[in-house]
């Protein structure tokens, strides 16, 4: 009687261990889905970490405009602020997130993302608008307000 009980327990333990091992070795675990990005605000920093501008309650920008050098690039880091006021970097989270820029005059400004930063390039002098989108596989989790950007030649 006791032997049968122990044998049954051993069978259960073996099944649990075997199942766990099978799942742990699985390349595509079942239903691993990264959560939506929950952010209150967005920061634009230069690559030294200096804050260039930020959104305020994601309704306006702290500074009215961003200057992009003509025929040159402006390297920036896009960071987010969660609802506790903590800044975070999407690069530290899932690979399912990406930063997109929607530019009104798309011929004038190009966004080239890299890991944890990206380049804004100005091709046509003048003013246009862009907004930043935090993309989560097939939809945006966060969209900033429109930001006026001015492309102009670098001043010596």
């Amino acid at each position, binding site marked *: 009687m006791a032997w049968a009980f122990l044998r*049954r327990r051993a*069978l*259960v333990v073996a*099944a649990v261990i*075997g*199942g766990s091992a*099978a*799942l742990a070795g*699985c*390349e*595509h*675990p*079942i239903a691993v889905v990264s959560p939506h990005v929950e952010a209150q605000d967005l920061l634009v920093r230069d690559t030294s970490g200096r804050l260039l501008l930020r959104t305020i309650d994601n309704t306006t920008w702290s500074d009215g405009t961003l200057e992009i050098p003509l*025929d040159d690039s402006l390297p920036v880091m896009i960071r987010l602020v969660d609802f506790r006021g903590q800044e975070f970097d999407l*690069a530290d989270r899932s*690979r*399912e*997130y*990406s930063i*997109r820029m929607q530019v009104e005059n*798309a*011929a*004038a400004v*190009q*966004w*080239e*993302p*890299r*890991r944890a930063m990206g380049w804004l*390039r100005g*091709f*046509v002098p003048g003013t246009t608008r862009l907004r930043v989108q935090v*993309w989560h596989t097939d939809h945006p989790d966060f969209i900033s307000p429109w930001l006026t950007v001015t492309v102009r030649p670098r001043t010596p």
Partner: protein
Amino acid sequence: MTLSRRRPISFRRLALPSVLAFALAACGGGGDAAPTAPSPAPGTPAPAPSLDLATIRTTTEMIVEDSITGAVVAYSHRDHWHGFPVVPSGAAGLPLRLWFSNELRDADDHDIPARRSWFRLDALRDHNVRVVVADTTAARWEGTGSGGRLVSLRANSATLVSFVIRRGTTTLNERPPLNIVLR
């Protein structure tokens, strides 16, 4: 003679292996991973891509190469491009060769697809690429699905170029618009 009594198989004995089998079966459903080409040995020329790799999918990436220097001037990566062509003034324009690759990189992996995965549209029957210049007063494309040249019509300006890959009249893939700068 003694007859051994066989106990009926209990539900629990069936249930545990079933759970394990289910877990293993679900494990295989991870979606269709992009095919990977074997790495060529160092020093050996890259092999021609297999027929499976030379297939246009919705995720197929493009590589735009300067056909004279062989330098990559731009390559697509999911929703954006890396790099941009600069078209010099003059009738010669910027001669380009168009390559395709099914090496799908992660969203945060911005490296160029490995050259061994590149293929030309010549490899596929009935396929063609429409190169659409957004501002036709600024630039012109002269060429075929494998290559051609961008010609600047208005110096010191910029526009966008779209690549639409089709089989017959069916659109298979459209890359995001590529910025081009005109000198």
